[in-house]
Structures are given as structure tokens and as C-alpha cells.
């Protein structure tokens, strides 16, 4: 596979709800000299906790179809959503390990003129950035941010760790190092590893219950006076950003906590404007954060 260039897997939430994350990712990777190419005709990953809870074969086959697009491009896959990462990583792993299952999936794919030989690798963008090098990344920082941030790891970036093996799943440092590289302080808090509440189809089935998770985390962040929450997954991003409006409606509690995807935070540190990173289109205003950064 060609290094220095990736097949950019968009998924659903990124292009269809938070295109600012898509724009930010394209811009920061261009700045780093890492190419991102579109996977034309890609579908939903499909979501691990939702479609994976409906039908295992469908989850495998649609995942394999997406992977086959990257294979056709001769490129490894890059994702900016941990749900997409989990599905594509796991589908890929299972198909690499189990030739029998691969045959079964290929039989189905052949019905639409496709096949997947399981030759690509799947990466989360934080891993690609970390491998690029924290010191190297620092060289691109034009504006050290000096913010006090809370990292939300989310679930599917690191867990299950048995095969992903990217970092200690119970005491991770990967994303902390990435935010520190931009001149931010990463604040510890008790529910650091807690789920955002959205996963597993819970958000669509039981909204209020799913927001209990979100609310608990936001309460802790507010007590600690952080400037923003930094996420690395578009679905977590949606749950924290849009979720704050829903929490206002359902619980009558207001946090006003800016929610920033790491691609956007990196863009800010590289000197890009909040508008070109889509930060003026969030449900919760990023103004308090931007005021602190100054012009």
C-alpha cells in the first residue's frame, strides 16, 4: 500500500451532520503532506453497535464492500469516526483471519460485481497523526493554543484492545499527547473513559437515557472549568454538541461547553480560521473558547 496517502472513509455523521470535521481533516492532512483520496460510492460503515446488533452478515458484507473500494484504489483506509473505525477494523480483521468467511462474503459481493481480498489496513486518524510524530506535529503549530481541555477518548478507538492494541485501554495517553503537542493542558476527570452514551443504538432507541452518560461527563467537565471537550469521533461529537441542546430540553440543565473534534483543534493550532473548520456551525457556540484564543 502507498504510504503518505490514504483512502478517506467518510461514513455518515461526518459528511452528513458535521462537514466541518470533513473540511478540517482534509485541510490539516494537506498541510502535513499526507494525501486523502475520496472513496467514491462508499456507504455507511455500517455502524458496529446498530447494524452489528441487527445482523452479523450484513455488517460484514457492507463493511467488506467499503473496504473493497479502498483495495481498488490500492490504499489503506483512514477514518475520523471511531464507530467507523471499529467496524472497518474488525470486519477487516475477521476477513483476514477466516478464509471461509471471506469466501462467503465474496460470494455475496460477486452478486454486485465486487470482491475483497483483505489486503488493506484500517487506521484511525489519531493513530496516523501519532505515528507521524508528536514532535513533527509541533513544527506545524503556528498558534500554541494554551487551552485547558478534557479529552473524551470514546469507546471504539481503543476497545476492544485485544486486536487494536493501540494504547493501554484503561490508561490511554495517545490523544493526550496529541492535544499537548498543540500547547493544551489535558485535564483528568473521573469519567474520562466513560462512553458518550450514543453507541449501540441507544441514542436512537432511548434518547433520555443515552443523555444521562453525556450529562454526567459534562457535569464533571464544568466543575473542572475546562475550556472545551475534545473528541476524536464524529458520533461522540454529535452526542456532546447536539446532546447539550437535548439536555436543555429534557433536563433543564445548561452547560455551554464547546465541543471540538481533534481535526478542528489541530486546524486552529495551524492557524486556520474557526469558520473554515465549521466551528461556527456547532449547536453549542465555540465563542467562549475562541475569545480566549484571541484574534
Amino acid at each position, binding site marked *: 500500500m502507498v504510504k503518505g496517502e490514504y483512502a478517506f472513509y*467518510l461514513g*455518515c*455523521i461526518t*459528511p*452528513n451532520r458535521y*462537514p*466541518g470535521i*470533513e*473540511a478540517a481533516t482534509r485541510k490539516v492532512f494537506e498541510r502535513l503532506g499526507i494525501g486523502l483520496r*475520496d*472513496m*467514491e*460510492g*462508499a*456507504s*455507511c460503515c455500517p*455502524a*458496529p*453497535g*446498530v*447494524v*452489528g*446488533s*441487527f*445482523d*452479523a*452478515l*450484513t455488517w460484514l*458484507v*457492507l463493511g467488506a*464492500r467499503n473496504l473493497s473500494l479502498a483495495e481498488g484504489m490500492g490504499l489503506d483506509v483512514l477514518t475520523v469516526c471511531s464507530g467507523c473505525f471499529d467496524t472497518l477494523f474488525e470486519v477487516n480483521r475477521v476477513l483476514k483471519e477466516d478464509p471461509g468467511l471471506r469466501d462467503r462474503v465474496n460470494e*455475496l459481493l460477486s*452478486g*454486485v*460485481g*465486487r470482491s475483497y481480498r483483505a489486503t488493506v489496513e484500517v487506521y484511525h486518524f489519531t493513530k496516523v497523526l501519532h505515528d507521524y510524530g508528536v514532535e513533527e506535529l509541533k513544527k506545524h503549530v503556528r498558534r500554541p493554543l494554551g487551552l485547558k481541555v478534557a479529552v473524551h477518548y470514546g*469507546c*471504539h478507538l481503543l*476497545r*476492544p484492545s*485485544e486486536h487494536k492494541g493501540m494504547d493501554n*485501554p*484503561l490508561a490511554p495517553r495517545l490523544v493526550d499527547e496529541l492535544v499537548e503537542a498543540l500547547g493544551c493542558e489535558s485535564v483528568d476527570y473521573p469519567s474520562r473513559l*466513560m*462512553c458518550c*452514551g*450514543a*453507541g*449501540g*443504538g*441507544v441514542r*436512537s*432507541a*432511548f434518547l433520555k*437515557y*443515552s443523555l*444521562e*452518560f453525556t450529562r454526567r461527563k459534562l457535569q464533571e467537565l464544568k466543575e473542572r472549568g475546562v475550556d472545551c471537550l475534545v473528541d476524536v469521533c464524529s458520533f461522540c461529537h454529535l452526542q456532546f454538541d447536539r446532546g447539550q441542546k437535548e439536555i436543555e430540553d429534557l433536563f433543564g440543565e445548561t452547560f455551554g461547553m464547546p465541543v471540538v473534534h481533534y481535526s478542528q483543534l489541530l486546524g486552529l493550532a495551524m492557524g486556520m480560521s474557526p469558520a473554515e473548520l*465549521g466551528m461556527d*456551525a456547532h449547536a453549542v457556540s465555540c465563542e467562549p473558547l475562541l475569545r480566549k484564543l484571541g484574534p
Partner: protein
Amino acid sequence: MKKEGRKGLRDLFSMQGEDPEFLRELRREIGEQEPDACFQCMRCTSGCDAFKFQKGYKPHQLVGFARLGLKERMVGSEVIWSCTTCSYCREVCPQRVAPVDVVKAARRLAVREGRAVEDHRKIAGYLIRTGHLVPVSETVKELREKLGLPGTPPTTHASQKALEEVGELLRRTGFARLLGEEKDG
């Protein structure tokens, strides 16, 4: 159940299922993971956030039900849909059981029996019609253009052929029949 053995101690590793057919099906569905090694230590439940926020949700109990083949306590209970699939339980289980996989397996059997949650049917319909669980909207198209991106993302949204491929695969796996809305069928 009759107590067996000395001083009423039951061998936790040889408990027999009450519904062998269900047990076989569940085991097939669970795939790589083995629920049998569970010794009910409750470590999974103690760290499970769904347990903290949803009354009656206990992953160790669901693993126990799975081992006993108590079908209705699993597929017949809406509580299985409380799991966020965060996989924390899988990370901390000393016996390398993955309660999350047991729960997901039970969900798939429930769906197969037509017991999917109504809101899930709705989003499954989006997948069938658009290739996305979360399709684009007119407002987002405008925002995309403002950001210098093509209004329609380069996904199934921009390719009829790709959308047809996805639709055909969803028919071939039986997903469309399982979760599609009747009127579309």
C-alpha cells in the same frame, strides 16, 4: 432447580441449559467468544455505565442467562437494548468473556424474531433507501458548500450505481426483509 453435590454447591461450569436449541443458536451467534468461562464475579457489571444509569441492566446476569439458555430473559427483554457496546466489560473480564458480544448476539436473535425496537426499524429504513443510517439534509448540503465541499458528499448519495449495489446486498443478506418497512417490501 435441584441442588446437587456436597453442601449444595453446584458446579458452575457444568450447568445445563433449559432450552438447548436456543443455546446452540446463541452460541453460533456469539461467534468467537465463549460465555462458558464466566464465574459470575460481577466485575463486568461493577464497571458498566449502562448498569449505573439503567435499572435492571446487569451484563453478568445476561451472561448467566446465556449459559442457562433462558431465552425469554434475553431476547424477550427490552433491557438488552440498554448496552452502548462500549466494550469496557470485555476489557476487564478476568475470564476473557465478552459480555458485550453475548448481548449483541441476543439482540440479533431478537431482531430475527421480529422484536426490533421501532426506532431502529426507522433508521434501518434510511440505510436501505440511502446507503446511510444518517442521510444528508438540505441544510447540511448548504453548509458543505459554504465549507468548500461538494454539496452532495461523494458517497452512495452521489452514485445511483453504488446505492443499487448496497440495496442488492441488503436484499441478499435478508436485511431488507428483516428490517425494511412493509410498504417498501
